[in-house]
């Protein structure tokens, strides 16, 4: 759908949600969910104890559980959701394809392949090597896809085609490595599903700069992005340096996704679903779309991790699996409900 059609559509129906109000509601929801997340787990910590712990006068064991395990995990879930959702918005806009997401461009499978290769072929490698490999793998595959798709410029369709092919190629590689009998296949499977287990302050601090720097950058370029939606020809006429902006945005989205994936593994769907949901709530203008998508993503991942942790402690279900099992059908339900209007 071209930009003008989109604008006309949103003019016909007045925005159901004022985006500012929505922003506040979502922020409150995130805070509420964080508090619930802090209190639920193997041992339920009532909110009063949470407060005393944070002030510094609480039971040292409870405090350490909150501060060492739950808090960083919650913050990491938020960052993950923000990073993946915003990347998804960018990729879908630039590719002008509602099916595009960093996953379909080979990013997830590239990181996955590198990570699984390290897990299985280099079992003695330290966790930071794993993260570095995942980051490098994802970025490298993306660059390869970009180069392969480049032929006097990059057309979205060709880009998507090659992205899907390379993605499937990496997936096969992953399956192949996994099928080779390896005692620790489980670890690879869990990493491929995406999980926040065992992630603490180190991982959080590693991811924080990426999200905190790139999200505002992307948001600032959002205004420019709206122009790009008019289509190449018109934008060029308006003097916007289309290709350059596209590249910077895409590179930022890729870098952020790669950073997220290198920390939590390949969580799928967030980059695909959240942009759709956000778009239907506040429309396609990126000034509003990106912050709302960010908050929705955070809520999504936070909720999934909470469910995975809280359903049957001490058993933990990886957040990525919850997202896949619950998120996907919910997404369809949303599509259906929206279409009835």
């Amino acid at each position, binding site marked *: 759908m071209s930009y003008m059609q989109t604008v006309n559509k949103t003019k016909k129906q007045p925005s159901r949600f004022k985006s500012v109000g929505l922003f506040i509601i979502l922020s409150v929801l995130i805070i509420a969910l964080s508090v619930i997340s802090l209190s639920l787990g193997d041992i339920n910590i009532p909110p009063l104890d949470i407060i005393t712990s944070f002030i510094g006068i609480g039971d040292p*064991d409870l405090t*350490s559980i909150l*501060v*060492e395990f739950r808090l960083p995990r919650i*913050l990491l879930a938020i960052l993950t959701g923000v990073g993946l959702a915003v990347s998804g918005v960018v990729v879908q806009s630039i590719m002008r394809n509602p099916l595009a997401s960093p996953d379909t461009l080979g990013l997830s499978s590239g990181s996955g392949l590198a990570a699984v290769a390290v897990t299985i072929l280099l079992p003695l490698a330290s966790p930071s090597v794993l993260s570095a490999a995942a980051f490098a793998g994802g970025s490298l595959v993306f660059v390869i896809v970009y180069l392969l798709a480049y032929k006097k410029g990059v057309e979205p369709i060709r880009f998507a085609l090659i992205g899907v092919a390379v993605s499937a190629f990496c997936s096969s590689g992953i399956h192949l490595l996994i099928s080779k*009998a390896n*005692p620790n296949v489980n*670890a690879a499977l869990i990493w491929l599903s995406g999980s926040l287990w065992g992630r603490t*302050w180190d991982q959080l601090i590693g991811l924080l700069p990426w999200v905190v720097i790139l999200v505002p950058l992307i948001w600032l370029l959002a205004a420019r992005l709206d122009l790009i939606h008019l289509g190449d020809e018109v934008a060029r006429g308006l003097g916007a340096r289309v290709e350059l902006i596209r590249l910077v945005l895409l590179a930022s989205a890729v870098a952020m996704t790669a950073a997220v994936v290198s920390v939590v593994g390949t969580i799928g769907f967030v980059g695909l679903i959240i942009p759709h949901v956000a778009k239907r709530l506040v429309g396609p203008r990126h000034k509003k779309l990106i912050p709302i998508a960010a908050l929705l993503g955070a809520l999504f991942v936070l909720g999934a991790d909470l469910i995975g942790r809280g359903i049957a402690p*001490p058993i933990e279900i990886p957040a990525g699996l919850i997202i896949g099992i619950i998120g996907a059908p919910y997404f369809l339900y949303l599509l259906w409900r929206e279409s009835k209007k």
Partner: protein
Amino acid sequence: MNKKKIGLLAFITMLAIGMLIGCSSTNKENSADEKSEKTRVVKHELGETKVKENPKRVVVLELGFIDALLDAGIKPVGVADDDKAEQLIDKDVLKEIKGYKSVGTRAQPSLESIKLLKPDLIIADSERHKNVYKELSKIAPTIELKNLNANYDDLLNTELKVGEAVGKKAKVEKVVEEHKQKMKDLKAKAPKNPGNVLVIADANGNINARTSNFFTTGVLEQLGFKNALTDPTKEYSVKMTMEQLVKADPDKLIVMRNEKGHTPLAKQPLWKELKAVKNNQVYEVDVFKWSLRRSVQGANGIADEAEKLLFEGK
């Protein structure tokens, strides 16, 4: 727009405050941890750890460690049992360790649960838990040993290390010596030229053959049975086709199963081409005893069964 910027700012501030609290509390935690007890340095797969002289509360994160711990005379207070204790742990062992608390799956044990048990020592698997070594060490002194991908020699080493770590070195060494003696005795009793053996796991009619890197084949090799699978590989199990099985043509074939009834492989026409089938040297065994119990006790069990099944003269 203003409200949004304020919202974003508040969000980032919350993050920052969270981090500050986190860092400061962690520091407090560390400084409060000075123990005045005597400690011993134990070397393990991921380095060295100072362990208390006589740990009483031990959490184990792989099943093979349970047997080793019991050999040292200590019961674990926490076990990562996938919430499937009946399926994965031997009945008698389960009775002995009753009263322990489950800490979740072996792949993702709950760090909180472990912490709440206030352990003196955590024994983790060097393959599964290498990524959380740091986090585990913050909870309690942690040693990481080979169990998931252990071969026969690793198994013995792990047993000794566990004994050393809990201060019962002598007791465990005795268990290992008894095992080694048992193996020697059995080897002497074994037929002189037993030929070669192939151990396969038959899953849904798939043939997954164990290589020499697997601990069961290691046990059998100690008894004098060579592995029919000689192609070099780093893996512990390889998929074989019926053709390749015919080509390998082992003298004795051990089929590990966890289902009732006979192996579906027997229905294949090429099955009767096998030497082992013609000579009635095919043995169907329980996969739990032969593959899943990775400990010295497990090895003893395999040796006993091997004696029963494989030692009869031809």
